[in-house]
């Protein structure tokens, strides 16, 4: 992944990580095409099935994000540590796909006992991002993201996209 389009894709993935960490969700969606789809998946060795734990198109994501303040939630800070592993250009450079490895930590705020826990960082999730992009004039947009989790014990879970 040495060329300019690959570099643009890689930059975009990292920019998304920065915006998600900053909880600038609307700015994150601005990196996505209007037909963007997002899902969180994992495989359960208990029921021996792949599972889709969250799935949204763009309107669904917008609603989810707009509703966040109306919900009681764990406001712990998620920190996504991403390393882009592979980028492939497709369809003559109009499309691209990428695989990245990520580790997501959560620094606790109000999730349990804030006096004791706030400020402590815990491992939350590890997994892979499988992304698809559309490129126009060398500028990529997310068209699809599958967050594939290795971790399946999320305990109280989360209201945030990963």
């Amino acid at each position, binding site marked *: 992944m040495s060329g300019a389009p690959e570099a643009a894709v890689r930059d975009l993935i990292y920019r998304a990580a920065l915006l998600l960490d900053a909880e600038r969700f609307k700015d994150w969606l601005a990196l996505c095409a209007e037909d963007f789809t997002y899902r969180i998946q994992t495989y359960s060795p208990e029921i021996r099935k792949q599972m889709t734990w*969250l799935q949204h198109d763009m309107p669904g994501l917008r609603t989810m994000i707009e509703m966040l303040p109306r919900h009681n939630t764990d406001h712990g800070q998620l920190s996504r540590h991403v390393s882009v592993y592979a980028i492939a250009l497709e369809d003559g450079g109009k499309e691209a796909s990428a695989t990245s490895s990520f580790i997501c930590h959560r620094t606790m705020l109000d999730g349990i006992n804030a006096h004791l826990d706030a400020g402590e960082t815990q491992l939350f999730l590890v997994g892979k991002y499988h992304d698809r992009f559309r490129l126009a004039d060398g500028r990529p947009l997310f068209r699809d993201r599958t967050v594939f989790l290795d971790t399946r014990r*999320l*305990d109280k879970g989360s209201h945030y996209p990963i």
Partner: protein
Amino acid sequence: MTADLTSYGNEALPFVDSRIYSESSIFEEELQKIWKKVWLATVHESELAQPLDYRTLTLAREPVIIVRGSDNQIRAFLNVCPHRGNLIVRKPAGSLGVAEPSGNANHMTCMFHAWQYDSLGRCVDIPRQKQGYQDRLDKSQVRLTALPCEVAHGGFVWVSLDPAVMPLADFIGDAFGFMREELESEPLDIFHYHKAFIRSNYKLWHDTNSEFYHDYMHYFNRATSMMQKGYFDRHYTTFANGHCTVGSMEVKYDAYQGAGDRPLSFPGMPRNGWKMVDLFPGTTYNIRGSSLRVDTMTPIGPDLVMIEFRGIGLKRDTEEERARRIADHNTIWGPFGRNLHEDLLGITGQGVSMRPGTAPRRVLHGRRENLSIHDEIGMRHYYSEWARRVGRSPADPLGEGMAAE
């Protein structure tokens, strides 16, 4: 609908003492007197669809394996080797049809010294038995401890650690009566599983599942349910042995034929219906429109519980139907769903204020509203059974003859 004569602590305003949620000694007693004595819902039969499929778990700390025998019958055994006590099958699920490194296909093999058991729990091989045990022990005398086990109520596998447990039918009574059509009309199928460790007492989760007053916590429910006609028509019904139900029976006939954009449901269930069965000491069946959610619990300590969440659809679902059920289910009940996260935050907060060593406090169980949806009768009924089983008053659990606070 039963009359509510239940009270403890204070007749006008029943309460429990918070130490029933925080005391180690009470917790250990609950394991012995409740969790090792009753029937517990475990896995769904669709998790072991084929002969020789198995699932492993623990009940009150004891390792258990549930296996569909070569004869297609589902059985439960202690997953503990009679030789030197090793855990036999280590994976959460799989098929005995595949050979293990130390054993043969079709067998459960203890990896340690390769004692092998067939899918009916009989010991079929003790390596070098004759040389090591001469006539003192023969494999025919050895078998895995079989546990009472029945498949019932929507295809769940019910197990008890007590060989002398009452029949499952007696334990459940008619608690599933009003959900029978949904559960028994056709085969069901699991599509969701996840688990959560929560720093709280397991009973606080069952409390949450036993009252709807906390719909104030859920923006989703405030908007979609509490404001709706019929919400307050739902009533609790209590059953022997600590169980109760609540549901939208009255709504049923009005809404049943309605077509719309979320047409999926369960047999006999109105399109946007909601029915719930809370079973003592910690299982909940919850049908909300298109999916059945079943919660089971594994208490780890007074301040820690593992909750397992299952999502169930119909076996005959098309791919599209299944995807629809999954989306409906996970939007509110998945690990990233709107409601479940809130519910778990609720009991996490209780777990903080009632963690072991905190001062005894009164926890009010006093809402009475003609057994309707915001009545706390579900909880009161549960703790009456709890009191009977552990032989303690929930309001004065240490027999101090005085009330907390």
